[in-house]
């Protein structure tokens, strides 16, 4: 079984941003994504998710290694200044690289 190196880009941000982040991913040529509701705390305070307005969403996508940093750069440019957002990449290995 051969596994191919890819990047997993993870975005954790305010729930209200989900639609815009997914839109940006699409614009960057990302094929799909996985999103789940999360809660936590950070520099912008507690996000306890008791209402959607004060909850977070975590969005994950797998992309080709060369695409990850430009994706992160786009996220930084569009959201970091005004919104609560953490975004990072990590190494993953997949069975079917053509899927991404």
């Amino acid at each position: 079984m051969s596994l191919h190196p890819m990047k997993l880009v993870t975005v954790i941000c305010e729930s209200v941003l989900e639609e815009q982040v997914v839109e940006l991913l699409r614009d960057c040529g990302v094929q799909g994504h996985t999103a789940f509701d999360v809660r936590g705390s950070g520099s912008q305070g507690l996000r306890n998710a008791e209402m959607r307005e004060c909850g977070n969403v975590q969005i994950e996508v797998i992309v080709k290694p060369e695409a990850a940093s430009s994706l992160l750069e786009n996220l930084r440019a569009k959201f970091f200044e005004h919104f609560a957002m953490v975004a990072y990449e990590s190494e993953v290995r997949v069975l079917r690289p053509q899927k991404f």
Partner: protein
Amino acid sequence: MDFFSTIESNLLSPAVLFFALGLFAAVTRSDLKFPEALYTALTLYLLTAIGFKGGVAVSEAGLAAVWQPLLAAVGMGCLIPLVAFPLLRRLGGFDQANAGAIAAHYGSVSAVTFIAATNFLKNIAVPYESFASAFIAVMDSPAIIMGVMLGKGSLSRGASRPDQGLRRTLRDAVLGRGVLLLVGSLLIGMLSGKRGMASVEAFFVTPFQGVLALFLLEMGMVAGNRLGDLKKVGPFLLVFGLAAPLVHGSLGALLGTLAGLSVGGTTLLAVLAGSSSYIAAPAAVRLALPDANPAYSLTASLGITFPFNIVLGIPLYFEIAKFLHR
């Protein structure tokens, strides 16, 4: 019934007592917690139920009786941000974006405060126009759009940022889940009328009070969790959070009286004018005015104005309405 006994009858209603329990649970950091899905479900139920009831009432009263008060409600939605914005700018020292964001929250309405007010009127046996829930549907959108446009003023002067957000704001303000569901249920209620009501009454009317009590328990916790943030927002917003509902509520009462509403209906319009949003406005404003700090608007709206209205505001607006109708 004198003023103190109306306040007392409000304080001792199950809804307000459950609200107090929620506040207590939050303040004591109890592990009592509603899942977010239940919060959403209860909101959806309450909005659908009052929308439907309002629609049936409109179909009975006829549009001729409704349009004037409805226009007054739209007027309130536009007027409040215009009144609040300069106050927030000049007296509060807020920048344009924050003043616009807070103005949008206070112009738009809290459906739950409205429901608690209808409850209150029912308890003291004061009749009201049941079509009043149609007011909620028409006040939110103009207020949000007005507040956002006021808040964006600084951006257009800077002109560095392309304005891609306004269309999205319009969509969020007009088609956001709250307004969409409310307007939709209203239309369904109007179309299906009294016969339709008979078929869904057991679900939308009979359990309503219980659902409201449960929801206010949750809202007590939500509001209570905000109390810690009160220290961060500064004394002006504390005063604003208490004074703004009174000023806006009085304006609403005046306009309701002029539009020919009964004491009950006037009270409800005053309650809507005095209330501030925490469903439609926060999400729409967060995206449209990203420079604004949501801690200000949401804390003032949820931590100060909402509890004030639930506990004291509603009987106060009723007294104001009674006074104006004398």
